[in-house]
């Protein structure tokens, strides 16, 4: 038996983690699930630690999930939102982060519309940085909770067939999942209109198709990505109507799917666009399990990054 020593100070993305590190987070998360099922949902693990949730882009579920995770670990948390922070007054992101650090914060959870901001901040401040979504780059905790859910429902990720359907180009969720799942040996297909497939993405070891049925047949899990209406000024496809006809996952197309396929979505769902209403709420859907699992995964990340040695001892065979 060997004690896993967590060495990363930040969680910037799954691109930078090893398979072993990803498994460590997922295993750690497992031990946190039970806390949220107790009558008193709180442990003292991060007592005395201060975590700042620094959100420069609208977010409901990710921020709520982090806040709950922090509270259940007894951390003191503080929220800065883009609209209420001094950023709108023209303060640079660097100054804003340094000011927050001057408040003696231990960890900063950051969401920003620009790719790379968490990485840049990690050079400016000493606090641990947790990426809660940066531009179109990564959303590592979402991918981790997706992987946690996949493990929970399907067991080992090795060889598991997972398809991502929708706007891959602008999806940080897809990118983080691609990094994480390929490292753990899953078999990934990405599917969407050709205009929304990133250049050279096949070189990352994923199968690319523009045919929805190819993405559905044989898949163990479908992860639907939100179609972002706000980007439609850039003309990526002719109409929502045509998108629905070509790429929507509904009861009809699911007839070709494996009986036990699971349907995932990072939310918020555009009902009846990428995902039919009845499928979103149907028996294949694990969308709400994803939300619940997000808490345990984020607790695990906060715990590991805090460097706290007490409370949990993580053991794994060599």
């Amino acid at each position: 038996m060997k004690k896993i020593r967590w060495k990363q100070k930040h969680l910037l993305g799954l691109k930078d983690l090893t398979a072993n590190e990803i498994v460590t987070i997922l295993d750690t998360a497992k031990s946190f699930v039970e806390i949220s099922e107790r009558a008193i949902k709180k442990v003292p693990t991060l007592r005395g630690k201060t975590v700042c949730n620094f959100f420069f882009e609208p977010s409901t579920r990710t921020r709520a999930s982090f806040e709950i995770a922090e509270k259940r670990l007894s951390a003191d948390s503080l929220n800065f939102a883009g609209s209420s922070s001094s950023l709108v007054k023209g303060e640079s992101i660097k100054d804003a982060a340094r000011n927050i650090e001057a408040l003696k914060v231990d960890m900063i959870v950051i969401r920003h519309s620009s790719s790379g901001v968490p990485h840049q901040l990690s050079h400016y401040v000493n606090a641990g940085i947790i990426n809660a979504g940066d531009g179109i780059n990564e959303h590592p905790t979402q991918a981790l909770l997706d992987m946690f859910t996949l493990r929970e429902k399907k067991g080992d990720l090795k060889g598991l067939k997972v398809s991502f359907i929708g706007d891959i180009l602008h999806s940080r969720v897809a990118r983080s999942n691609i990094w994480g799942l390929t490292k753990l040996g899953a078999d990934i297909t990405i599917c969407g209109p050709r205009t929304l497939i990133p250049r050279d993405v096949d070189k990352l070891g994923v199968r690319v198709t523009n045919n929805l049925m190819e993405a559905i047949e044989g898949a163990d899990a479908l992860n639907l990505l939100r179609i972002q209406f706000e980007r439609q000024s850039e003309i990526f496809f002719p109409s929502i109507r045509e998108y629905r006809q070509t790429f929507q996952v509904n009861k009809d197309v699911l007839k070709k799917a494996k009986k036990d396929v699971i349907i995932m979505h990072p939310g918020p769902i555009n009902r009846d666009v990428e995902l039919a209403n009845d499928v979103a709420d149907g028996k294949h859907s694990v969308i709400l399990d994803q939300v619940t699992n997000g808490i345990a995964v984020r607790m695990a990340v906060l715990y590991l990054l805090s460097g706290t040695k007490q409370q949990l001892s993580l053991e794994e065979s060599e």
Partner: protein
Amino acid sequence: MDYIIKSAHVIDPKNNIDDVLDVLIEKKFITKIDKNINSSSAKEIDANGLYLFPGLVDLHAHFRDPGFEYKETIESGAKAAFHGGFVGCVSMANTQPVCDNPSVVETILKKAQHINFSIFPCGTVTKGGEGSELSEMADLRAAGCLAVSDDGNSVADILVQRRALEYASMLGLLIMIHAEDKQLSKNGLINEGLVSTRLGLRGIPNAAEDVMVARDIELVKLTGAPIHFQHVSTRRAVELIGEAKKAGLPVTAEATPHHCTLIDEDIVTYNTNFKINPPLRSIDDRDAIVRGLEMNIIDAIATDHAPHQDVEKDIEFDKALFGTTGLETALAVILTYFYHKNILSLQDIVKKMSLNPQSILGLSDFAEVKKDIEANLVLVDINKEWTVEKKSFVSKSKNSCFLGKKLKGKVAATICKGILHLF
């Protein structure tokens, strides 16, 4: 003051010199080039072990003056130029006000003259650089412009471009072209490819440059007007320019030190000093540019010196401004990557960084190792090793994509308009 440069290895292919010689500079002019010159009055500069080249000439630099003096002024830019061995630079027109009329040209020329530096101001092709109406080019020519360019704002309207070429050629004004289709490059930050996908940064496809190079070569066929392509970044652009030259069209081209050395894979962190337009491309493109230099498809090395302050650079990648400084690193980079790796000879480098830019601009007797012309020379220690650091720079801005790089070759002194700047 008079100077005598002793025992320098002089290289000037235009004047067929490749020998260890003394050079006497009296009253700012070169008066004698010979072995063992003796002079009792001139100050002796021991150049034993150093090389003496014609002073470097940059076809592409942003001096930011007037208007953006917090980034660079003509004075600070000139100091950076001297530090890098340049005795003359073409200044780009995106100042504030824009250099689209004689009064801005005159202001720039006056400031440069005041500090004994040579700037060849580039005017705009269109009023305000906005791409719709032609600038008053005859006025610009009369004020002293040798070339016009809308640089970062490519002229999108092909009819305006046609008329501009016809009109400018009538005046003997060279049009310099930043080839970029702004629709194809829209929202792009770095080269489109695996790296942009990996980093989650929006891409700029090669086609954004290729289509404009192809378009403008067709316009050269149509109009017969000469054009110069700025900062070539793609393999296809090199090929198209090579084909145009083979067909005898009056086309010239430059590449920057960064495009012929760095690639998109060098952007591993979100370091905005690598955010440059055109972007650093693939290794295949970079190799094609190097081949283009070797084959003389690319005539010149130009810096695209683009100074910016931290408030514009040390910020979010998508909000940071495009550009890297270049004047103070160009020669060292070229020596390190090409001379010391046996890809280009010193003669080639002198041609690409001094003689060819002069001939593209139509300059004569400007920077040469030649009797009876004003001394515009550079003394170089080609083996001196140094590391690029923020404190290495005299420019007001430190946004260099070469920060941290170890280079081999350094300017020992620059003589500009007969005045010595010793480092």
